[in-house]
């Protein structure tokens, strides 16, 4: 009885949260959510996969009801996660298992491990859907793995504590950031050799290419900045600083980033500042700071880019943010130390 009541309360709260949001779109979504209440999980909403670093699990969230669909056991210390291009497989960096696990979306089973090198933290899948570029944090190398033959194609010496990984949309460049060397390393994917380095501020974390591959964005956690690098010249063209009222400079630590494909916004997770910064991509200025949970790490945008899901490491939850209003609309409890997030579009959810 009491369980039932609790569930009802939760749903009511969720509903109220939704109604607070401005905009027709969200009201419509609130109505949709109300319609969905009481229904079993269906393929009507996207699923969000979240890796829980300290629980060795992945939490799957329904992107409309904001309920946890299931929690799956995976390898040790899962951090970076990404999907194959056909969304049939989830790749998981199981850092302490020293493996990249290939997870079957349809059966919730680990199919096999890929030879990843030691301590894989983050990775990026080449547009060819075949080659994974993996940062090996403890070894100062980047490993290129062929996911079909399950072999290591190349290992490339990079700086100390490689962390962020990005592959350009045209597939030409792979970028790895090294946290202690403070560089973005440029790897030519044709030859898998390191051809250039761009020095950025202290402790670079995430790297993201704009959709046109003209800019590379790199966040610097300890430097407190985001460097926007011109891909043509590999020189920094803008450095973005963040200032929040009532939050000391030291706590502003940019980590994960998401760039919207319309070229309008960049979302920058500010770690222990507990906010996500919204940067205007035309002026390169932060225009808003969205309050989320404690020590926000990474984000995942929905395919429609109408919402994003931000992982809050210390508070162990995920904040849902509405892109139209730039407001948080819901907090979802997940496992311990949620880290990475990726969306499985609804049309790919196994029936």
């Amino acid at each position, binding site marked *: 009885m009491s369980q039932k009541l609790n569930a009802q309360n939760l749903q009511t709260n969720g509903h109220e949260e939704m109604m607070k949001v401005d905009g027709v779109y969200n009201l419509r979504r609130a109505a949709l959510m109300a319609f969905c209440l009481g229904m079993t999980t269906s393929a009507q909403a996207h699923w969000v996969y979240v890796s829980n670093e300290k629980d060795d699990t992945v939490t799957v969230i329904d992107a409309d009801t904001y309920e946890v669909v299931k929690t799956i056991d995976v390898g040790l210390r899962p951090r970076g996660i990404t999907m194959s291009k056909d969304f049939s497989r989830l790749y998981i960096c199981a850092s302490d298992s020293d493996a990249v696990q290939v997870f079957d979306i349809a059966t919730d089973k680990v199919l096999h491990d890929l030879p990843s090198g030691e301590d894989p933290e983050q990775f990026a899948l080449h547009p060819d859907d075949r080659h994974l570029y993996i940062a090996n944090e403890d070894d100062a190398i980047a490993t290129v793995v062929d996911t079909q033959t399950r072999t290591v194609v190349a290992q490339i010496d990079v700086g100390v504590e490689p962390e962020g990984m990005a592959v350009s949309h045209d597939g030409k460049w792979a970028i790895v950031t090294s946290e202690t060397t403070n560089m973005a390393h440029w790897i030519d994917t044709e030859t898998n050799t390191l051809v250039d380095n761009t020095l950025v501020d202290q402790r670079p974390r995430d790297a993201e290419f704009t959709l046109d591959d003209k800019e590379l964005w790199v966040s610097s*956690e300890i430097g407190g900045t985001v460097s926007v690098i011109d891909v043509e010249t590999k020189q920094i063209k803008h450095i973005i600083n963040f200032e929040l009222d009532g939050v*000391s400079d030291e706590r502003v630590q940019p980590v994960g980033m998401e760039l919207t494909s319309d070229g309008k916004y960049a979302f920058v997770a500010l770690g222990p500042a507990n906010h996500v910064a919204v940067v205007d991509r035309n002026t390169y200025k932060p225009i808003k700071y969205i309050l989320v949970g404690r020590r926000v790490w990474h984000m995942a945008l929905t395919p429609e880019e109408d919402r994003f899901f931000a992982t809050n490491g210390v508070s162990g939850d995920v904040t849902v943010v509405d892109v139209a209003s730039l407001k948080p609309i819901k907090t979802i409890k997940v496992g311990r130390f949620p880290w990475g997030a990726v969306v499985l579009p609804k049309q790919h959810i196994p029936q």
Partner: protein
Amino acid sequence: MTSALVMVCGSVSQQSTDSDLFHASSLMNCVTFALAVASSVASSAASSAASALAHGSTSAVARAVAHAVAHANQSVVLKLSLGLGAALSLNAGVFAAELAIPIHYLGEVRDRPPVLSNRVSWPDDEGEPGALLAVVDNNTTGKFLKHQYDLTIERIDLDGDVVAAAKALLTGGSRLVVLNVSAENLSVIAQLPEAQDDLLFNAGSLANPLRNEACLGNVLHTLPSRAMYADALMQFFSKRKWRDIFLISGNRAGDKQYADALRRSAKKFGLKIRHDKTWLVDADIRRNASSEVPVFTQERKYDVVLVTDEDQDFSNFLLYHTWLPRPVAGSAGLKAVAWDSVIEQWGAAQLQSRYSDVTARSMTSVDYATWAAVRSIGEAVTRTQSSEPAEIKTYLLGEQFSLAGFKGAKLSYRPWNGQLRQPIPLVHADAVVGQAPLEGFLHRVTELDTLGIDEPETQCAEFTN
């Protein structure tokens, strides 16, 4: 320096593991290391071996070299001098370096008094693995910029003369030197005429006067001061509302200085040292803690017992024996440190893991300070493209400089006294309890300056900017 032995190893493949790389066996007072290095010639692993004679504790150094070789494809020159102390030079890089950056480490083995517990011991190589790890880090970065860092490690034994060694080291040319020596010796060395064009890093002394009235313009401090440790503890007490303190001061010079710092800090944070006692000199507290300590601490009111005992003689025997059931902090129980093996957050696990590749023992505050000194140099060289001590000092004291130090906030140097600003972890034996500056302690410039001697109260006039 009676004899020196030079050894050269070729480049190696990355797949080699440390255990493949060297084996140790003892020979009389010395230890022989065979640094067997697998070199990749036409994809088959051939190996070349070299051996060196050194004091036992250079094993860490040999491992570090092996590690550096394994991880950076570098050639290595290992120079070991016997006699006064062991000196070692790590010369990394098969690439054509456009800029060479020699860094010197000079440490003295401290004269530690006998202590009650047999468990207490200090590593003779304290500070050395920290510097080595940092130079390996620097060289990994350096190879992309064609910068090559060479580290020379010199350790002076108890019967040696560290000032004479410093004189010899600093003669001719300006140098970058990391010092792990006592406050007295640091002061003498920094005032040598030979040292005036050098940049020295203090990684071995906590003394407040070196950061204040007795500061010297050619010395930067990467180890925190006792004042910083004291303020970190007081912030914690203040937050926990432990307002009444029972202070027990040890009898040794460092203990008294730490107690002074704590008294000053209590005043600063509005806490009350209600009881202030000096520890008994003659008690073997191991045997009679249960009868001595309750009597010694028999008072009607205190929230916490604060003890200063830097050599770990008696303080650990106070826990659970105090008259009132109260926590113990200071040199036992809850401690303020620059670094400890329990620290894992903010990427610290990576630093701990890289450190454990260098040596078997855990990383201490002094190791962290030598690491931070050598990494500071690396950052300055990377950004300025210069190896000149004067230019490096200017950059380090400037607003542009920041160092990622695995403590969740960027580290920088206070321009008024050359102290490295840094968070101070508060730890017990098995976990981190907190990290100062604690939330809520505000400062107009940076919250890190709520710890230690702040600009308005500084008596240091050697840094004129």
